[in-house]
Structures are given as C-alpha cells and as structure tokens.
C-alpha cells in the first residue's frame, strides 16, 4: 500500500516525525540531529526565544525554508498565559501554528486538560493551527477536535521520562475515535517506542529528550527517522494478527455440523 502524505493544518508532510529543540548540548549538534531526522516540523519553546537578542535567539539556528516552526508554550501554567504567549509569537511573525503546553506542575510537567481546552478554544477561534499536548484522555481529545484543533498530542508517558507508551490502551482509543491526526508526544525513549506508536496508527510522533540527551544525538535521530518509517509501513501493511484463542470449543461443536 502506497503511503499518502500526512495532512496536518492544510499542509502535506512526507515526514511523520516532529522534533523538539530542548536539552541539546549545543546548537550545532541540535541542527545536525534535526537534519538527520528528515523532519519537516520543529517545535521551539517560546520562553527560549529572545526577540531582543539575536545572539541568543534559538530560532536563528533553524532554517525556516526547510522546517515549519511549531512554537510551544512550555512553562505556561494557565490558559491565559498560553494564549498571550501564542499571540505575541504570531505578532512577532514566528508562526500561526501553536503547540499548547499548559503544565502547572513544574516537576512532571503533566498537562492541565481543563486549561488546555480553554486555550485551544480561544486560539482556534483566533485562527491558529492548534496542536494541544494532552494526557491520553479520549474524551478530552474529542472536545479538542470539536474546538477546532488541527491535531491532538497525547503523551506516551511523562515528558522526558523515556519510558515509552505507558498510556497505550488509551492512545488506541484516541486513534480509533479521532478525525484529526493523533501525534504521540512525550515519553518516547527508544526508536522501537516510535515504531510501536506508528504501528498503532498514530499519524506522527514528536521526539525531543530521547534525541537531545543520547550519547550520539545525530545517530539516534537517524534511527528515529527509520523507526517511524518502519512503524508506519507496518501499520499500512495490516499487521499480521496475533494468534488469538480461536480453537473450536466443544460446546459449539454443533456449529460445524450446520
């Protein structure tokens, strides 16, 4: 089966891997790793962008001809903060894409569903292409779809934890029910986790910590690229079904005699 483009916010993407820019040990390595992922979309924390100081501007390292910038509201604790940050970024010409991250707890950085929904409703109305980072909550995912988000981004496990798809069962439901792309964000620690998410039918995955803090970020970036491709092809192939308990059972012997 030939893969179609991944359609997101009116764009066609051939890459199903989105990459984050935090925690790299140098901008140079970050740039090389991003290249190796063959991604077309890069997310940047607006808190790290200094519009006043070009020398410390994370954005200046990212080739905007090659990549769509997906600004994120990392650090926001309320809907209001996320909304303001998004508006300022758009006014500054960064992007009309926005990844909403509302994480009132600074330790596990888990998303606040209630505040995320509020921010998404406002920003979608304002014409943003909204991509909310959420807990793997199927009901919230539907509400966000209704609010006009271009995708939902459920977490696999807590951000930065590299623990893989601990929320698997709920992610399956989100994928099954969603009419917008489901992008698994947070917790993907190994290429095999990315493959697993793609095999489940996720539209894409977002990866940051696993690449940025690896011994060799460039090599693992390439591995993630391949893993996403492999997982996607697996999904498209209609994966062979695992053997279920399907032996004929004696109380139903009569069925074969019909």
């Amino acid at each position, binding site marked *: 089966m030939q893969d179609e483009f991944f359609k997101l916010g009116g764009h066609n993407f051939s890459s199903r891997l989105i990459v984050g820019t*935090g*925690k*790299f*040990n*140098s*901008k140079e390595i970050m740039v090389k790793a991003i290249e190796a992922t063959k991604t077309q979309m890069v997310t940047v924390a*607006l*808190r*790290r*962008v*200094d519009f006043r*100081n070009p*020398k*410390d501007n994370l954005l200046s390292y990212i080739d905007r001809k090659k990549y769509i910038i997906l600004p994120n509201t990392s*650090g*926001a*604790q*309320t809907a*209001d*903060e996320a909304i*303001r*940050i998004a508006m*300022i970024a758009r006014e500054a010409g960064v992007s009309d894409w926005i990844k909403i991250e509302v994480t*009132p*707890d*600074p*330790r*596990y950085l888990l998303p606040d569903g209630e505040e995320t929904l509020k921010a998404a409703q406002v920003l979608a109305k304002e014409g943003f292409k909204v991509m909310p980072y959420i807990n793997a909550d199927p009901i919230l995912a539907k509400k966000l779809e209704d609010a006009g988000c271009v995708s939902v981004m459920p977490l696999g496990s807590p951000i*930065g934890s*590299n623990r893989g798809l601990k929320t698997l069962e709920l992610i399956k439901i989100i994928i099954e029910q969603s009419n917008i792309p489901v992008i698994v964000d947070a917790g993907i620690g190994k290429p095999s986790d990315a493959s697993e998410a793609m095999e489940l039918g996720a539209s894409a995955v977002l990866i940051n*910590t696993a690449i*940025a*803090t690896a011994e060799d970020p460039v090599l693992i970036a390439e591995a993630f690229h391949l893993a996403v491709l492999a997982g996607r092809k697996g999904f498209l192939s209609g994966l062979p079904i695992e053997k279920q308990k399907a032996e004929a059972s004696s109380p139903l012997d009569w069925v074969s005699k019909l």
Partner: protein
Amino acid sequence: MSFYEKFGEYDYSNFKKYLDNEDKDLVLNVLKKEKINFFDYLYLLSNGAKKVLPQIASLARELTIKRFGKVINFYAPIYLSNECSNSCIYCGFNHSKEIKRTTLTKDEIEKELIALKEVGFDSVLLLTGESPKIAGLDYIKEAVIMAKKYFTYIGLEIYPMSEEEYRELVKAGANGLTIYQETYHKETYDKVHLKGRKKNFEWRLDTPDRAFLAGFRKVGIGALLGLYDLKYEASIIGLHAEYLQKKYWRGEVTLSFPRINPKETGFDIPYSVTDKDLVQMLCALRIFLPDTPFLLSTREKPEFRDKLIELCITQMSAGSKTNPGGYTKDDAKEQFEVSDKRSLSEMLEVVKNKGYDPVLKDWEENFLGII
C-alpha cells in the same frame, strides 16, 4: 501546617541511625532504586556513602542530564543596598561593622541594570540587606518595575516580608524569591544572629511558605554551609524542599549551597565543609530531588565551579559584583568576596568547551504569579 510546625515534629535522633551508617552496601542498594525516599536520602549523606562517592556522583550526573540536558542557565545579581539592621556575625553587611553603606538611587539602579543587560544577561537577581526603612517594600518594588524593562526573569533575595508585601512584589513583576535559613539548627541560629529582626527563627523559616502563597513561581532555599553540622543541615534542607514541593505543587523550589568564605569577615568557621562534603551533599540531593534546579554562585573557586558543571548544577551566576553599584563604579563594601571573577563571556566559553549549552533566556514575560 506551616513548615515551622512540621519542623517541630521531626525527631532528629531518628535520622541518626541512617546518617551514622558506615556500610557502603546499604548505600549501593539505595542507588538501585527507581525513586528514593527520605531515609534512603539520609543513607546517601552517611559516611558509608563517602566510600562509594564515585558511584553516587555518576548517578547524580546521569539524572541531571536526563532531566535538564547538558544545559547551564546563567543569571547575575545586582546588590541594591548594603544597609542592614541585623547583626549576623558571619556577614560582610553586619550592622555593627563600620563599612561604607550605600543604597542605590533610582538613577544608579538604572545604570546597573543597563550595564548588566549589555553584558548579555536576561535573568537578574536583586538583593538587599534588611533595612525596611532605607530599602523597604516601596524601594524594592520600584527596582522590580525598572528591572522588568530590561530582564525577562526577576529574582529577589531580600529580607523576610509578609505574604501581602510579597504579593505586591509579584504584581510588580518579580518571579522568584531566595531566602536562606542560614542554619536550621535553632541554638546555632540564636548564637550567630545577635540582633535585628532576623533573630526571629520562626518568621524566617516560614518565609518560603509565605512566598509561594504570595504567588512567586520559584522559591530558592538553602543553608549557609559551615555554621553547623552539614549532615543535620542537609537532612532538614531535604525535608524542607520536599514539604514545599508537595504543598505548593505549582511552584518550583530551587536550591543553592553557599559555603562561608573564611576570608570575608574573619569569621571562624565552626563546621568547615570540604569539597568532598559538598559534592556528597549535592549528589544526595540530586538523587532525592531529581527535578530541582541547583544554583551555583561565584563564592566558589573557578576550578571547582568548572567541575560542578558536569556533576549536577543547572544554573550559575557569572561576573558577579556583590557590592551596590559594582557594575558601574566600585567603591562600596561587598557582601562576600567573589572567588570566581571570570566574566559572562568567559563562562560561556567554559560551558561550551565542556560540551554544555549555555542558556541566557529561559523565561517568558507573560508568566504571571501563581494564582
């Protein structure tokens, strides 16, 4: 329940069994756990732990990189005033010392802010002594409003105030507050704080509670290391941080580890802290509190600071002046002698050469106080 009340419930003698442990194997078992509890943490502070310090350090480093990446954030202090009505026997601003007292005028503050901004900083820490009459709430508020024009992140290291007063500073734009208990040992506290409002141990101990209630997003705590037994101080710091994190879950606790510099006041250090002691405490705290930012000031020597970059600290000051007006003129008395005099640009190179990414802006001006 405030921390002071909780503090009264601890029985330190129950901690001793763990702190006095000599067995390294018990410590190695702790290192195998996915998440450690407070008593495990005490094992990491024990003598037994000193025998396996390299293993402890290796885990501390690993956890730091996993949570923060190889990234160091930079900030710088501005001393607004060295007026102080307290008499802390270890401090350069001690009321009874005959030093030149300076409180920056509005104009001078502006000049300091501009000078520091030009160096490249985006995160600033404003400091005063304790002199509510000369450098009180209105004065500090004015300084915060001025600083906000130039800096994204404004931290304060000022004297303990009421929740209402702090709330005014949060509204003015301050994001963080640092308040060291100096020592968590009451008898020692009474002995080294001879007069002034600072004599009130309880008021100071509950300051971080008031700060979070007032809406500060980050509150820094710590002890002045050298005043009392390090194991005791480290135990209580761990408890204090854990208490604050659980209670004020939207806030971020940060830790600093100021060691008394013997040269500064001729103060005879009762419990001097070696590099090894300090490293052990840092690593134990990192393993106990893997998400907590650790700050390192210029009190420490350059060679030691450079090593700690690769261990577990996450934020550093650089090019600091600890006297009011120090960035534009240089005649007032410093609070402590800066051991690491290297400039920000030198420090950026040091950090890069170690394979770490130096970060100047990591805050957003639209982040408000905690509601």
